[in-house]
C-alpha cells in the first residue's frame, strides 16, 4: 500500500532516518523502517492518520508537533 505523508512529517522522518528521497521508491526493508518510525511518532502524539482531500489515508503531523516546531523556531531565532 502506498504511503502518503504530509510535508512536515516527511521532513521529520527524513531527519530521523537520514535523507531517504521518495518514500514509495524504497526497498521493502527501508519502507518497513519508515512505517515503524511513523508508528513511533504516532504513539508519541506527533503523527496521526487522517483522510486527505481525495479520501485516502494519509499520515500527518499533529497540532502538538506543529506547536513543538513553532517553539523550536522561535528559540532558534532568539539565539
Amino acid at each position, binding site marked *: 500500500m502506498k504511503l502518503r505523508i504530509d510535508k512536515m512529517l516527511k521532513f521529520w522522518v527524513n531527519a530521523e*532516518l537520514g535523507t531517504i528521497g521518495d518514500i514509495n521508491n524504497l526497498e521493502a526493508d527501508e519502507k518497513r523502517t519508515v512505517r515503524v518510525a511513523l508508528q513511533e511518532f504516532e504513539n508519541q502524539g506527533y503523527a496521526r492518520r487522517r483522510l486527505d482531500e481525495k479520501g485516502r489515508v494519509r499520515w500527518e503531523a499533529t497540532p502538538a508537533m506543529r506547536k513543538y516546531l513553532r517553539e523550536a523556531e522561535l528559540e532558534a531565532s532568539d539565539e
Partner: protein
Amino acid sequence: MFNIPTEISSTIHAYSSVAFENDISGLQRNWKRLQKCRDRDGIYEFLSEVFNLVAWWLADKKALRRSTERFARQGIHPVLDLEPFAAAIIAAATPTDVDKRTVSKWSRVLRYAYQFKPPSESLKKFVKRNGGLNKCATLYAHRLGRLRR
C-alpha cells in the same frame, strides 16, 4: 528529538491503544475549548475533529474494530457500523454528560456528511451549504435513517 526503535515490530501499522488515547485526548481538548468558546461556529471545529478521526477509522476496518473494542471497554457501546461518531463525541465529552438528543443530532449530521460530503469540502462549508446542523440531521433521517422512503 524522537526515539525510533531499532527493533522491528511485527504489528507495524496497527492502531495502538496509545495512539487511540492520543486521538481521544485531542478530541477532549477540543471539547474543553468548545465549552469556553462563545463563537457560534466553534462547534464546527469540534465536529470536524470528530469527523476527521472517525472517517479514517471507517476507511481502515482494523482501526475501526480496535476503536470499537476500546470504546466497549470504556463502557461506550457503538451499536451500528457508523455509530463510532456518537461514541467519539461521548468519549470527548467525558466526564461531563452531553444531552443524548444532542449526541444523536450531531451523530446524524456526521453520518450524513460521511455519505454525501466531497472529501475536499470542509465540514462547516458542507453543513452550511445544506442548511445547517438541524437541517442536516433531518436530511439524514429522511435519506438514510428511519424516515427513509
